[in-house]
């Protein structure tokens, strides 16, 4: 029995901040950061946006494309490291807002930047097991980066939602695989505002070891090579890492570029590779194969192989496309406005 994505959607906030604007506040050299991170600007959520609001918008776009009754959704899993509540699920609010309550399973996921892809995997697996007709997996974050830290240049906001099902599939999931170890490269302790990271240790033993192992093992298990894919999407903590991973694996630049959003979006953490996938689905043709590998610190990498079906062409323009949201009408803000929006200014207690 085939299962896969029957509806998808992304949401990108309109506000942006440029690398130069952050660098000038901290006395850093903008060209060095832009070249080192392959990043020009990043998205910033408004004060009235969070993981829940962006997830609702992305899920509504996914529902529009799926054309299904939301009451038939049997589970909602939102992966994020910036759920607005420490205790109280984001998923219940999203479920009520899209009209999926009350007959459904729901829990929030957390696994650094791969919580969203884990949510997608569980949603897919529940449908595959025959437990329900449809399940919704969402990756969303309003990422945190400490002021002055290298993360501040990339930590961005966005969401992508995927409805998994068995009927009218847009992209059949042919194989999945996950590679997981205990690797402390990036973390945030309870009650801390900002995450910490282990500098260069986040590269070779963390991102590259997990993501490359995931991609290689997934291709070996499925008997595929880079030539079998029209597109590949890798987690994008910056612009540089996914490009380097692609080169090591043997994927040419043109197979990466459509889903490579980091240069103007930044790192949307749990939303990162899911949003890359939604950007690829916006333009993919029937028969195309897509390799997607997420990466979450701590650490793990989820891999998926999707085969796009004939049904995709009918829905690609049915809801706002990912790159259209990224490129149209951005509102650029200065660092002061950014600091206010992100709650980085200490105020009098109310």
């Amino acid at each position, binding site marked *: 029995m085939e299962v896969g994505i029957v509806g998808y959607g992304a949401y990108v906030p309109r506000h942006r901040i440029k690398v130069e604007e952050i660098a000038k506040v901290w006395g850093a050299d903008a060209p060095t950061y832009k070249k080192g991170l392959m990043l020009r600007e990043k998205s910033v959520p408004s*004060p*009235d*946006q969070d993981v829940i*609001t962006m997830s609702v918008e992305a899920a509504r776009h996914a529902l529009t494309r799926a054309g299904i009754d939301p009451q038939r959704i049997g589970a909602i899993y939102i992966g994020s490291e910036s759920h*607005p509540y420490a205790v109280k699920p984001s998923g219940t609010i999203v479920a009520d807002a899209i*009209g999926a309550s009350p007959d459904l399973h729901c829990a929030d996921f957390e696994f650094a930047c791969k919580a969203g892809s884990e949510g997608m995997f569980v949603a897919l697996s529940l449908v595959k097991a025959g437990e329900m007709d449809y399940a919704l997996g969402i990756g969303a974050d309003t990422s945190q980066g400490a002021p002055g830290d290298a993360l501040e240049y990339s930590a961005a906001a966005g969401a992508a939602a995927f409805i998994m099902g068995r009927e009218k599939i847009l992209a059949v999931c042919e194989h999945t695989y996950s590679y997981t170890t205990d690797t402390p490269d990036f973390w945030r302790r309870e009650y801390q505002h900002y995450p910490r990271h282990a500098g260069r240790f986040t590269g070779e033993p963390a991102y590259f070891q997990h993501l490359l192992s995931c991609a290689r093992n997934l291709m070996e298990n499925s008997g595929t090579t880079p030539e079998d894919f029209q597109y590949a999407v890798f987690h994008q903590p910056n612009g540089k890492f996914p490009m380097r991973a692609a080169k090591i694996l043997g994927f040419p630049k043109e197979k990466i570029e459509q889903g490579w959003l980091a240069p103007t979006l930044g790192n949307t953490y749990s939303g990162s590779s899911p949003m890359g996938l939604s950007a690829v689905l916006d333009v993919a043709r029937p028969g195309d194969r897509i390799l997607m590998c997420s990466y979450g610190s701590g650490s793990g990498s989820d891999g998926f192989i999707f085969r796009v079906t004939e049904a995709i062409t009918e829905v690609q323009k049915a809801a706002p496309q990912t790159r259209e949201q990224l490129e*149209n009408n951005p509102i650029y803000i200065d660092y002061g406005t950014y600091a*206010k929006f992100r709650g980085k200014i200490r105020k009098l207690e*109310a």
Partner: protein
Amino acid sequence: MIGSARSWREKPQRYRYQAARCSGCGKVFFPPRVVCDKCRGRSFETQVLAGSGVIETYTVIHIAPSGFTDEAPYAVGVIRLDDGVRITGQIVDCKPEELAVGARVRREFRKVTEDGPSGVIHYGYKFVPES
């Protein structure tokens, strides 16, 4: 402070934009009413309001009430939705001076306010420029 209960009661309107359409005369109420003020009917059907519309009129709030002071100046407008229903809402993601009567806007799900940093967060609809 709004509190948990009121926000919870208003979910059908704040989250899903459900209005009540009088079965007798067709008048639409948002929020719903128990009795139709036009035909005195007591039977209503649920109607989900359109997601886009035009700004019929608006004002800019400079002196904001508690809970909204960080947002000032911000716009509040009367939006004539594409189904003809008029509703009031905040218009965000734009500078107030860029707004114009007749401009198209669409609805988005946003945080409306919160009961302080440790209280409940209240979600609902706001409007953003369509382009």
